[in-house]
């Protein structure tokens, strides 16, 4: 069992817990993105390049983009124009 793998698996758990304990939605989303990318690396280590490429493209890519659009729609991203409008 290589050190890298143990570290990655440990980080997965930390990220998963982090999603629940961060205050800001944007932060938890970014933590989740990191989680997805680490998952892609782990799949590479498990000799499944098909999965790694799909997870990187779909899981970390498209899913996160969809999340970001949603956050923008619900004015959860600080500093954008909508957010200020929503505050007024």
């Amino acid at each position, binding site marked *: 069992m290589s050190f890298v793998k143990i570290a990655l698996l440990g980080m997965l758990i930390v990220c998963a817990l982090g999603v629940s304990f961060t205050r800001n939605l944007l932060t938890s989303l970014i933590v989740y993105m990191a989680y997805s990318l680490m998952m892609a690396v782990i799949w590479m280590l498990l000799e499944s390049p*098909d999965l790694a490429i*799909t997870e990187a*493209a779909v899981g970390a890519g498209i899913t996160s*983009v*969809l999340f970001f*659009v*949603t956050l923008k*729609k619900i004015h959860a991203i600080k500093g954008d124009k909508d957010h200020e409008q929503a505050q007024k």
Partner: protein
Amino acid sequence: MSKRRSDWEQRPQARFLRWMRDGYGALDDQITTSISQPAAPRPDQEAMEAHDILVGTHRHERELALDRLAHYDLQNWANTRGRKVLGRLYAVLALLLGLILIYFLLNTVAFMPRFASADVPANNEVIARYVEKGLEETGAINIVAGMILDYRAFDTLGESTVLFIAACAVLILLRIDLDDHGQPMQQLIAEESDDRHYEPKNDRILQGSAMVLTPIILLFGIYVLFNGHLGPGGGFSGGAILSSGLILYLNAFGFQKAGRFFTYKIFMWVSFFSLGFYGVAKAYSFYMGANGLHSGIPLGTPGAILSSGLIMPLNIAVGLVVACTMYIFYALFRKGGL
């Protein structure tokens, strides 16, 4: 009858029943309402009006008023301390449930076949045939592609259908209806506060890098798509990469420009042709296989780009469905239409 009924409403049995009804939802959902949410002020005046109506003559108005009162009661209760305690209790229970689940699953894992060893039950005659005969029977170098598009093609057909149906569900949810002239209803747009007002932003850095990156991303996506049977990748990842290229273009140049080549009609027709092709091609091969006939599709030389029978066209069909679905997800989230 009605008089007795209103008496009855006051009695403990009726309260119990009301608790069963309202409290039913209350027990499993309202308990956990955010503590931080500001309490909705009890609308005293409205409650007074409700009382006024209560002494009115019409029975259905009275019923409605009773309901309204019950609702205010519920909301009030929802913001009292007892509620918070129950909320904590629910949280603790949920946490406990999660921990118990983890404990049981960990116990199970300890008894699972040993990781990474060759004598696990999964290492059986099934994968022996996939690995040893896969190249010969499907013609695909990538055994995974051969497996999901030939041996177990029905699953993959179902999976493409999942994407299609998901796109349709999001269309139901987010698409802004067009009026009779084919224009989106203005009032709906205003209501839904979409992004059309901010389009396009004309950011030079974004547009410049998109100019460079979009063709590269699209090219890479096409490469992955066409190489699904020769190496890692295939329909799903290729389609996702294609759609990310399209999304980048859309973000940089706005809906006006993207709408020139990608409309709702095009989405529907592309999905129609890809899924239809997929369905018909696989139906043909299922039918032939089930009735013991030879499908007569040449497998070609393994390793060549035009090989492995139907796998490459099917990959392309899947990729198109994936790309369309992802793009339409994004477009619908942004502005409720294409």
